[in-house]
């Protein structure tokens, strides 16, 4: 868990500090510096028309853009998409799950709708949503979050169903506690641990899906630097210039791995059974 957390902390630091890490504006290009291999020096033209000397640590793409800058700025997008999708999916899933678990007559209809959503491949839903509205950051987040909502709903519902039978919930009923207070005061706090773990998995998956959508050309517009976009552009020249795909790929793999390790660690520490096992 520490390794996952530390890697993630480094990635967040890189994303936040991107402008001060020897990067240039990721959308700048220079025809003179096309297809440079990693470590080569070249020049780049700013928006004001100035030409600067710049070392292309990770090389440049076929437009002459700095891959290093694009990958670092891409980290911002990926982490934001991962976190936001997880939050959106959790928020909707928790509310729906609580309702399904506590309002018995709504359970059947609601869960059948969820089953329906789960029957459609997540990528297809995402592509459809992005196709309906234009590809922007918020559309992509919503598109990735929607297929995750049924999973969270199911988890929360099952937790609610078992927790509502606990004697302390019955005691609260006997004490005259209103239903909404029982749901948010007694049941919800006891679902936090598994939800947190589920959240990290959604986060990791969302980062992957965002990259896939961008790679397929249905995600964020190509001028926004995301790992998926960089790889999509590099794909054509993959044989000649593998660094275009290699560096964003490494970052993507590392990030997803870090989030997953963090999730596994959280699951173990938050699980009372695991914690008790000495």
């Amino acid at each position, binding site marked *: 868990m520490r390794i996952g957390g530390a890697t993630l902390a480094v990635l967040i630091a890189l994303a936040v500090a991107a402008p001060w890490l020897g990067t240039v504006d990721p959308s700048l290009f220079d025809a003179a510096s096309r297809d440079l291999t990693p470590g080569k020096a070249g020049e780049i033209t700013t928006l004001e028309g100035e030409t600067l000397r710049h070392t292309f640590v990770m090389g440049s793409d076929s437009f002459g853009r700095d891959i290093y800058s694009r990958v670092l700025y891409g980290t911002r997008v990926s982490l934001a998409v991962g976190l936001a999708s997880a939050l959106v999916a959790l928020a909707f899933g928790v509310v729906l799950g609580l309702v399904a678990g506590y309002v018995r007559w709504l359970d059947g209809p609601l869960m059948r709708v969820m089953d329906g959503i789960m029957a459609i491949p997540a990528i297809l839903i995402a592509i459809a949503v992005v196709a309906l509205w234009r590809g922007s950051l918020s559309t992509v987040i919503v598109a990735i979050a929607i297929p995750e909502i049924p999973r969270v709903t199911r988890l929360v519902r099952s937790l609610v169903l078992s927790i509502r039978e606990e004697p302390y*919930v*019955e*005691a609260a009923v006997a*004490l*005259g*506690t*209103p239903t909404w207070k029982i749901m948010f005061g007694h049941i919800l*706090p*006891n679902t936090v641990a598994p939800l947190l773990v589920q959240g990290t998995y959604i986060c990791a998956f969302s980062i992957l899906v965002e990259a896939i959508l961008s790679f397929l050309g249905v995600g964020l517009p190509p001028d926004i630097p995301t790992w998926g976009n960089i790889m999509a552009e590099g794909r054509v020249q993959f044989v000649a210039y593998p660094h275009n795909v290699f560096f964003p790929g490494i970052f993507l793999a590392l990030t997803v791995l870090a989030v997953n390790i963090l999730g596994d660690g959280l699951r173990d520490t938050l699980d009372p059974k695991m914690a008790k096992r000495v």
Partner: protein
Amino acid sequence: MTTLQIQGLSVALPSGGDRAHAVCDVSLEVNHGEIVCLVGESGSGKSVIAQAVMGLLPNTLPVTGGRILLEGEDLLSASAARRRQLRGARMTMIFQEPMTALNPVMTCGAQLDEVLTAHTTLPAAERRAKALNLLREVALPDPPRMLDSYPHQLSGGQRQRIMIAMALLLEPALLIADEPTTALDVTTQAQILALIVEIQKKRGMAVLFITHDFGVVAELAHRVAVLREGRLVELAARDEVLTRPRHEYTQMLIRSVPTLKPHGRPADASAEVVLETRNLSKTYVDRRWLRPAREVHAAADVSLTLRKGQTLGIVGESGSGKSTVARCIVRLIEPSGGEIRLRGTDIAAMRPRALRPLRQRVQIVFQDPYRSLNPRRTIGEAIIEGPINFGVSRHDALQRARRLLELVRLDPGSLGRYPHQFSGGQRQRICIARALALEPDLLVADEAVSALDVSVQAQVLELLEEIRGRLNLAMLFITHDLRVAAQVCDQVAVMQAGRIVEYGAAEQVFLEPRHEYTRALFAAAPGRNFAFATA
């Protein structure tokens, strides 16, 4: 002849526990043809000793000293392979929970057969014959059908008989029984205990019987070993220990065992009626497609009257409907018919909104102290929840909570602590305080002391009695334990299969039971004929 010798056994606990050793320097012997009862409260280390003998200790509990000899052979220095040979063949164990001790996806026959194939080279037909013989010996009806049954098709008592048969398959010299009747109803328990005694006599086995129940000890022990926090405090013949206990801990334990005699306190028949149920019933309907619906009458025609300052006990075995009645009265479940009058107001069919103001009049304490408190809330929050729901200010509610903690003899300064920082008995006190915070007219105790150790149980019973007297509460006391009922109840209703079969003053029900089921219950109460030391 000595079958099992335990000499100076010590087992370490992982560091950070409340004590260094799970078991410390315990020596005892079990002779051929003898039943030794190992008695102690929870956490005393009695199951650890059983596991050490069987070689089933987890790695976190290493044996740090002593020897365990089975028929002269040192078990602790034996190889894993040798121990595996001995397990099942020379020593065997039966467990508390007969459902989880049997594999639910294998037939009982296959599980019996597995033992024989693992240890013998008998052909299939002989293995089956042997298994059938044993099922007959443990008095199971229709042995061939039993062999083909899955565990869930059998009752708890039948499953425990299968376990015993399995344990006896290879004619072991030593049988370890770890609370084998604790999960069973009292009448089933009586049958299983009788079976164990009979088989032990017939085969001359040595039996190490682990229990927390002195009634069970009185039924079957030859000798008794009393454990306290991993140390052996007393080891002597049964009558010696039960009637003239030497160690003060044993004396305290035996004093805590409630007697079967009703307390004989006169009840005021003119006191105000707090609760009256008329023909209360709860029917579960299982609607099935294209087939007639199946109805289960969990409770039927239950009519009870409870007066202020008195305690009404509902006694019965599992599935008798006693908890259903309690939960209907608290309106945790909806009754299907009849009336529940709280000081004259019928609440049986009341809608939730109208019911809410009446909730504070009835409060309930549950059986399991570990699940009755929200683990993520401080006990202060738990106690003030009710008063705040009914409009008491936070400040006043907290003051009331402090007074209540004092009343249940807990430190009023511990309001900010979480449930896991308290023991089971303390948590049950907190639950009582939480129930009393609403100043109810009626307190329902649903098996409220059943999960507690006997000494803690005695304290909580005493506390409940004191509170009932001081606050002039009406108390509805649900229990399966006749001894507990005898100690606290003014009136007793005996339930069987959802109906009340006998209802009257405790004196009359206990001393002159009229219904045959009541008589059967008393006959099954372990240790009923034994005069425990009372001094």
